[in-house]
């Protein structure tokens, strides 16, 4: 009987053991399944996170690439800018140089205009010379006048001579001839004197007209030159101002 009992006990303990084992296994499997599930979840989560992070990394890589591309572009632009700045600087220097030359040119024009303006002084000289010409003319008029009066006097004297000659009768005949020749000469002198007076009048008119034309023309030129000088000075000061 003990043997049966022992066998039964062994058998039940074996069964129990097996049961326990299977329960153990089941629960272990369950238990193992849990972490496995959890692990699976975790793995899934990690995979997702991983994927997200990969995506982020990709994004960032892409951004980095874009930034690098932009940086490269900026470097190029900078290089171009520096180059064009150089060109601008060169043109600016050239322009400054040109402006310098223009300013010098403007200085020369202003100086010339000033010099031309002083030519107005020659009109003063011509003025004086013309006055002296007119005075000369007046002088000739006066002398001609005197000649005229002398001639008239000669006519009177010759008339008187004719009268005396007539009084002297025969003896005065030769004298009468001379007296009448003198009268004829006097008449011709009178004519000449009148014609000379006409010439003097024409000379007076032309001299006066020429003198006045020179005087008036001179003023016209002086006014234009002064206007040129004013313009030249304005131009000159504008160019010099721009450099300060």
């Amino acid at each position: 009987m003990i043997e049966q009992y022992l066998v039964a006990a062994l058998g039940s303990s074996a069964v129990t053991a097996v049961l326990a084992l299977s329960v153990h296994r089941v629960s272990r499997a369950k238990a193992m399944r849990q972490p496995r599930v959890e692990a699976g979840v975790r793995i899934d989560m990690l995979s997702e996170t991983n994927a997200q992070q990969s995506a982020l990394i990709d994004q960032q890589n892409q951004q980095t690439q874009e930034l690098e591309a932009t940086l490269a572009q900026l470097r190029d632009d900078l290089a171009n800018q520096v180059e064009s700045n150089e060109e601008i600087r060169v043109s600016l220097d050239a322009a400054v140089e040109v402006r310098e030359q223009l300013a010098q040119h403007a200085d020369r024009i202003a100086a010339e205009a000033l010099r031309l303006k002083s030519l107005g002084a020659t009109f003063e000289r011509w003025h004086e010379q013309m006055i002296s010409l007119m005075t000369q003319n007046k002088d000739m008029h006066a002398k001609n006048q005197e000649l005229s009066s002398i001639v008239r006097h000669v006519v009177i004297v010759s008339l008187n001579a004719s009268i005396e000659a007539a009084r002297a009768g025969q003896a005065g005949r030769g004298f009468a001839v001379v007296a009448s020749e003198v009268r004829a000469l006097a008449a011709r002198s009178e004519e000449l004197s009148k014609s000379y007076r006409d010439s003097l009048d024409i000379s007076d008119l032309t001299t006066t007209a020429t003198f006045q034309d020179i005087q008036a023309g001179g003023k016209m030129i002086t006014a234009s030159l002064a206007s040129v000088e004013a313009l030249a000075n304005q131009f000159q000061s504008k160019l010099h101002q721009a450099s300060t």
Partner: protein
Amino acid sequence: MISSHAKDSFERIFRKAAQSRLALDSGDACDITPLGQGETGASLAGDVVVLTISSIVFRLILVIHFDEDASTRDYFARNAAERPFQEVFLEICNLCCGAMNQELLRYFPDLGMSTPYVLHARCVSHLEELKPGYLSSHAITINGSVHLAATVCVCAYAPIDFIADVSTVEETSGELEFF
């Protein structure tokens, strides 16, 4: 070389200047009548005042005849008892020519005017010697008693054509233009 428009214009400009400047007061009557060809120099004995306006294309000679008789002398020297008649009269002729100068400046940019000079009236008969393109004379009577005459002689060196508008009322002379 001087167009008929230009001739009329010179005439108008002369009339306006003579009217406004030869009379001492604006209230005085100033009659201007044209003189024929032969009447120019012979109309007055006495003297003339000669002035010239020069431009690049022409010169204009203004000749004003006067006879220094009592009525002329009394009229012009009336405001200026101490001043010699000729000086006063020369200044008036200067103003008259100046007025013509101002009008002409509107059509010819560069003009110059001479100072006046006195010659004998006989000279006027020789104006033809200067070969003028325009020559015209007028008798001027102020207040019925002062007798003057004026001759305008223009010599052209290039064709001249312009139309003067003298209708603009005077104007700025005598007034101070501030800069």
